């Protein structure tokens, strides 16, 4: 069952710095200092900030998502080969220029060290770098689903050049390699996990099956599926088949 195997190679990042171009060599990740796509009406700017481990005493807008940086090298989500970076994660935050936060059911703005519990499954560890992707909007921006989805899309466009480099990175430089299988144990009790995810509307949304692990492009929204159930194999799940937009 070769189709069943998913190999994830992780490359550890020891330093993140700003430079002219994207680069990844000997554990050093270089990202451009500015990210300036053609921003439509409603946006003010997108600001990038590198936060070093143990230097979390910085102000933050409401935390919208934390995203691992992974790239599909061979196969589709759930099979084949994936390369991922460890030691660095993207943190997406957002507010308007007059300080209104983009979450109304409890906003996590404040000082980053007080608003983030490190070392959880969904958060960076204490020794990890954080790339803060801070989206600033004009006070009168049009709050709807398309607008918010596009905002997350920009973060994906920012990551894509790193993915391109990761796809070409030689596997021999990987820090760790894990091979996962959708293991079955016939004769034992059959067990399933059911995950209820947000799908009520703007910023209560999740994408399934993006092209890149934990990506946005080509993903299908659970809202567009009318919130109907979808079955994922363990390996699809492990390979970033869900992108949160909550």
């Amino acid at each position: 069952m070769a189709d069943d195997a998913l190999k994830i190679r992780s490359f550890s990042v020891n330093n993140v710095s700003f430079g002219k171009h994207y680069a990844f060599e000997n554990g050093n990740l270089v990202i451009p200092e500015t990210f300036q796509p053609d921003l439509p009406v409603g946006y003010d700017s997108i600001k990038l900030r590198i936060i070093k481990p143990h230097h979390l005493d910085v102000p933050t807008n409401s935390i919208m998502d934390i995203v691992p940086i992974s790239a599909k090298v061979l196969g589709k989500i759930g099979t084949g080969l994936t390369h991922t970076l460890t030691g660095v994660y993207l943190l997406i935050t957002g507010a308007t220029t007059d300080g209104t936060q983009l979450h109304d059911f409890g906003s996590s703005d404040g000082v980053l060290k007080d608003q983030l519990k490190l070392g959880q499954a969904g958060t960076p560890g204490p020794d990890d770098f954080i790339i803060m992707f801070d989206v600033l909007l004009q006070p009168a921006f049009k709050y709807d689903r398309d607008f918010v989805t596009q905002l997350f899309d920009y973060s994906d466009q920012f990551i894509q050049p790193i993915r391109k480099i990761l796809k070409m990175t030689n596997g021999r430089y990987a820090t760790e390699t894990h091979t996962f299988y959708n293991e079955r144990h016939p004769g034992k009790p059959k067990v399933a996990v059911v995950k209820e995810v947000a799908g009520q509307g703007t910023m209560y949304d999740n994408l399934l099956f993006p092209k890149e692990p934990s990506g946005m492009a080509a993903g299908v929204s659970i809202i567009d599926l009318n919130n109907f159930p979808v079955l994922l194999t363990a390996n699809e799940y492990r390979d970033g088949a869900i992108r949160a937009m909550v």
Partner: protein
Amino acid sequence: MGVGPSTKETTLHHFRDPLVDVFGADPDIDFQGVVVVGTPQDNTLKGLVGQRVAKWLQAMGTNGAVLSADGWGNSDVDFMNTMSEIGDLGISIIGLKFIGKQATFVVTNEYTPFVLDINKSKSGTETTVVGENNLDHRDANKALGFLKLKMRADHSKQ
């Protein structure tokens, strides 16, 4: 908008999900996979999606399932409905969600005693600290153990 910060599951959380880690690695169960279901705004749809999950598990021959929720509040109705739909078809079901002191059940039924609380904050509230009340490996292991006991108990009743 957005679900409560301390319970929300980030994309990184899904990538490293403790439930998939723990359930996918246990040789004493035959792990079938993860059913992802949304939480519709509309009441008729709320009932329908829960029912579809239950029918699907029944067709898969599932003996036991764990239901877990991202966030709390509005989605609690969906949670209890889906849990009941699955349980009513004779499938052993346990739940995992944020309860604390803030999100206790408004209505209780025969399934509510089988919901484990993932709250970790001292205050038992939505603390707005991202990651604080997330489901972790301890919760996942506890859920697996609890589900095994539930399956055994339900089986001996039959």
